[in-house]
């Protein structure tokens, strides 16, 4: 799949600002960004529900709006896009027929989806009687009924409890074992780190970095580590000191990067010299959250 210079405006708002991506076969590609960054618009452009103002999207070499592309793509929307009064089986049958399945192929696909989503024992249950996690799993299964080659999952764990989230991760890992390619959007850094081979960080409709997790961290921080210092004082009084030592004030803590552990002692000495009481110090390997913060100056969940 190849996305080249895609631009989309909604009125005066730029939702996608020249997005270019390339996805490799059988990989899980993460789109990481805060709410409103343009993740869903990009996904909807890929499945043909949003028509870009300019740029090109090719799915397995064909245009995104073509019938061949529709057959190759499976979309799991962020909303619970299922028929609430129909049972799980009836929902899957409907979506299967919309994709042109019938007869034995449809029945096999339904059985596979119910097993994959661990809903076989609830197959005859109307959706409005299922738990939130089960509805989410059915929502995912609905996007896979026609066994697409590429699956697009738009924040599939929104509003899901931790146990159900783990189950969803296992489902996605099972898909990968079956050889499907997955595009996974999230604003949860841990999900991207666990599931994705490569990640694109998107903000304000632009891809600001892409690569594997290690590549993103290396490009942003090199071999530096992150030091988080908690001070007794917060706010304006300590801000000049933090910025004076190349740090950032985040959530009431001062965050710095250091090349050598020895730099930590110098940092603490400087705090003492300026009369700032240090309550706590910790040393971290930078993660995707740190990368996003480093690149945008904001946290992922802002």
């Amino acid at each position, binding site marked *: 799949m190849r996305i080249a210079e895609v631009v989309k405006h909604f009125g005066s708002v730029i939702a996608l600002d020249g997005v270019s991506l390339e996805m490799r076969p059988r990989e899980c590609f993460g789109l990481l960004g805060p709410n409103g960054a343009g993740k869903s618009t990009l996904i909807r452009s890929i499945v043909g*529900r949003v028509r870009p103002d300019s740029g090109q999207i090719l799915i397995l070499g064909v245009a995104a709006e073509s019938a061949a592309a529709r057959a190759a793509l499976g979309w799991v929307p962020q909303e*619970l*896009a299922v028929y609430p009064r129909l049972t799980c089986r009836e929902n899957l049958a409907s979506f299967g027929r919309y994709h042109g399945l019938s007869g034995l192929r449809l029945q096999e696909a339904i059985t596979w989806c119910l097993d994959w989503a661990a809903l076989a024992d609830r197959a005859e249950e109307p959706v409005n009687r299922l738990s939130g996690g089960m509805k989410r799993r059915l929502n995912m299964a609905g996007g896979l009924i*026609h066994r697409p080659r590429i699956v697009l999952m738009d924040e599939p764990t929104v509003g899901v409890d931790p146990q159900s989230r783990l189950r969803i991760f296992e489902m996605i890992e099972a898909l990968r074992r079956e050889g499907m390619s997955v595009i996974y959007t999230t604003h949860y850094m841990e999900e991207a780190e666990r599931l994705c081979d490569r990640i694109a960080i998107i903000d304000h409709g632009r891809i600001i970095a892409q690569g594997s997790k290690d590549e993103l961290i290396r490009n942003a921080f090199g071999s530096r580590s992150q030091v988080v210092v908690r001070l007794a004082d917060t706010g304006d009084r300590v801000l000049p000191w933090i910025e004076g030592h190349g740090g950032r004030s985040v959530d009431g803590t001062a965050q710095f990067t250091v090349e050598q552990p020895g730099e930590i002692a110098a940092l603490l000495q400087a705090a003492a010299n300026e009369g700032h009481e240090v309550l706590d110090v910790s040393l971290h390997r930078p993660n995707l959250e740190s990368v996003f913060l480093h690149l945008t100056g904001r946290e992922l969940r802002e």
Partner: protein
Amino acid sequence: MIPAIIRTALISLRRDRGALALSFVLPIAFFTIFAVIFGGRRDTTPKITLLIVDEDHSRASQRLIRGLENEGSLRVFPRPAPKNGVEQPEYTAASAEAAVRAGKAPVALVIPQGFGQAPISFGGERDGAAIQLLKDSSDMVASQMVAGLLQKVAMTAMPDVMAEQGTRVVDQYSGGLTAEQRRRMDEALSFLRRQQANSGAGGGNAGDTFGGGIIAVKTHDVVGENKNNPMVSFYAAAIGVMFLLFTSSGAAGALLDEAESGTLDRVLSSRVTMSSLLAGKVCYNTLLAFVQLVVMFLWGWAVFKLDFWSHIPGFVVMGLTTAFAVATFGILLASACKTRAQLGALSTLVILIMSSIGGSMFPRFLMPEAMQKAGLLTINAWAIDGFTKTFWRDEPVAHLWPQVAVLLVAGAVLFAIAHRLSRRWEYV
């Protein structure tokens, strides 16, 4: 506290256009419609079409016809309208009956040969041949009105005829104006006055014979004579269509639910296109509406003895075309709205107005002419006309073509507009 509650409610009402329309526009629209129909606006009161057949060609019959022609509430036709500029022959008893049967006029009068020899019926006597009043009893007003006007015209437009026949009566009974004969003459005249007072200005009694009036009239139900329950088929169609419109717009609202939940997006990301989706919805809503009609008419058959089984072909044709038209109407309303609430308000407003002027609430023949014509813009009017032709007039299926054509074309146009409006869901 109370002003704060009122203020909050007012702000909410002001921002809810649907509720505003239901609160103010709908009552005003209904008030206007009812006021125009029943409010006594005489300049727009509907005129009754009266076909007249003069088999007598006497001075009395001509006087009577002229008197009827001068009545402002009647439109008297002694012959059909010219065809391609060619004058048509006068109605005969048979052709007038056929015209009433076909619904071209609600009533026809046949003045039989010999009427002029003794036009006035004294009391229970049947001196002259009685005028035949051929009526379509689905229009309960027209025949009563014509019968009354006939008696009025006899009193006001035929004084010389009455005097002439009166003299003959005098000659017959008195043989000369002796004192005794004068007394008997006075008795006869007072009898006449009593009869006039009894029949009243609008005259005419219901029943087979309007024999209590000045002129003897025999009525004949040309349409509906053998019907078990004459108005049931009308109301089955009239009420049925109105509720079909409501059901259809409700069912079409599923489109809005699917758009809101994201299901519509998912469906449109599959092989399903907007055109096929709308076509599928129209097919479903058509079937739903048709089944509703079947249930309604079966109920009419079971409970009100509606003659359903002998009209199956006409019912199927009218049922399916009506169902198609209301289904597309529902899809159009849903496509024009953004939310379920909006659809609820708009459909209530539009359907109630359509139903009132289209004849679902009261027969269209009661309405002023302008409103009868406006009613032709509604699905209700064409559907009711078609069902009336089938169940009331027993017309063959081929005669339904104007109603079928209008409903099919209307359905196609509504579908095209709905398709255009629903393009907003196709892509963003």
